[in-house]
């Protein structure tokens, strides 16, 4: 690697904005990995489109984080020149695509959450975050609808698709708890009316998830043990591999443009 990682001054608002941006970038990148590989053409376009929505959200959030930080960083530096431990995304979103069922269950768990989250963030006292949310909530509404339909189709489909969908739910469930956790840095922003308190969204999230999963003849695991660490930079082994691909060009040819 020919270029060093940047330093980030993680004030609470910068950290918070980066967390939201990293969520969008990492899931968007995962979806982009499907491009040209999806089970059918319409789905290939759908996954790429959803990835593009997320990439767009990430760009706006990174630009805002750069503006708030005011240290000369920009959207590209945040994306390309931070190392694994500097990434703040949810562990759920860096999990590998696996089979189509894993991709859709991951999408579904997050989209239902993001949809509630952005809608709540539209009331943020921070005008930029509220504006990003106003756009993102419509996009996430489409993502919820698309992934919900797939959960039902897979769960209530063949024996094979049912087993795969249930397997994906069992595998990914322990990563859902992290979405609702809050640390001290974020707590202060919640109290100030800037950040969303995810705990207030949990019952609605669970209600929607249960209703779709039920319709799909699937079940949620009984275990409530939850994995965590992404928000503070402790990631699974998968993120490093993802970043090595995402960042390879800028790390090898610093500042390359075309």
């Amino acid at each position, binding site marked *: 690697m020919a270029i060093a990682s940047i330093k980030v001054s993680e004030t609470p608002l910068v950290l918070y904005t980066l967390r939201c941006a990293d969520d969008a970038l990492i899931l968007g990148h995962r979806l982009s990995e499907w491009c040209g590989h999806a089970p059918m053409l319409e789905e290939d376009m759908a996954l790429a489109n959803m990835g593009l929505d997320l990439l*767009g959200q990430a760009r706006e959030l990174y630009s805002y984080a750069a503006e708030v930080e005011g240290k000369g960083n920009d959207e590209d530096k945040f994306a390309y020149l931070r190392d694994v431990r500097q990434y703040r995304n949810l562990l759920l979103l860096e999990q590998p695509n696996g089979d189509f069922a894993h991709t859709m269950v991951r999408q579904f768990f997050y989209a239902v959450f993001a949809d509630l989250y952005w809608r709540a963030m539209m009331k943020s006292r921070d005008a930029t975050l509220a504006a990003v949310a106003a756009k993102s909530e419509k*996009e996430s509404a489409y993502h919820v609808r698309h992934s919900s339909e797939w959960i039902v189709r897979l769960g209530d489909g063949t024996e094979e698709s049912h087993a795969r969908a249930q397997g994906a739910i069992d595998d990914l469930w322990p990563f859902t708890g992290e979405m609702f956790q809050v640390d001290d840095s974020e707590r202060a922003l919640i109290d100030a009316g800037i950040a969303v308190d995810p705990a207030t969204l949990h019952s609605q999230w669970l209600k929607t998830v249960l209703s779709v999963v039920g319709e799909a003849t699937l079940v949620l695991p009984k275990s409530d043990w939850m994995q965590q660490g992404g928000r503070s930079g402790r990631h699974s082994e998968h993120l490093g591999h993802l970043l090595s691909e995402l960042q390879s060009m800028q790390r090898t040819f610093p500042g390359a443009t075309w």
Partner: protein
Amino acid sequence: MVTAVLNDDLRQRAWDAAAAVVDPEIPVLTIADLGVLRDVAINDGRVEVAITPTYSGCPAMNMIGLEIELALEREGFRNPKVRTVLSPAWTTDWMSDDGRRKLREYGIAPPLAGGSRRALFGIEQVACPQCGSGETEVLSEFGSTSCKALWRCKSCREPFDYFKCH
């Protein structure tokens, strides 16, 4: 006073030049039709244009920014500036009636009015831009660009793009 009139005149010329820029992916629509053009100001003789992004990930926005600069340069405005404003967030409700008509004539069903969650999730009755029939069905929620879904007319059997509510 004279300066003010001159500025108004300049501003109008700059507005007209910027407003005529078309969406690179739907070239029948100008950015004024789309509601993307928000403001044109003259500050110390320099034109500053404010645009608002449509769909978060729409790659056409970079192109539109570049096209605006080129259009202004062609009109003789030196070193114009294009900035992006996020608030208030763009919605398909900002598309002009003229823009909706142009879209239909181009073969793309325009977005239903009221780009609210109700329109996103309610019963969508999209008329076929070819034959006008209301007997249509969605083929894919996600189409060739972020702003479009793929539909099919059950009367004339033609597939068509639908500009999604946002």
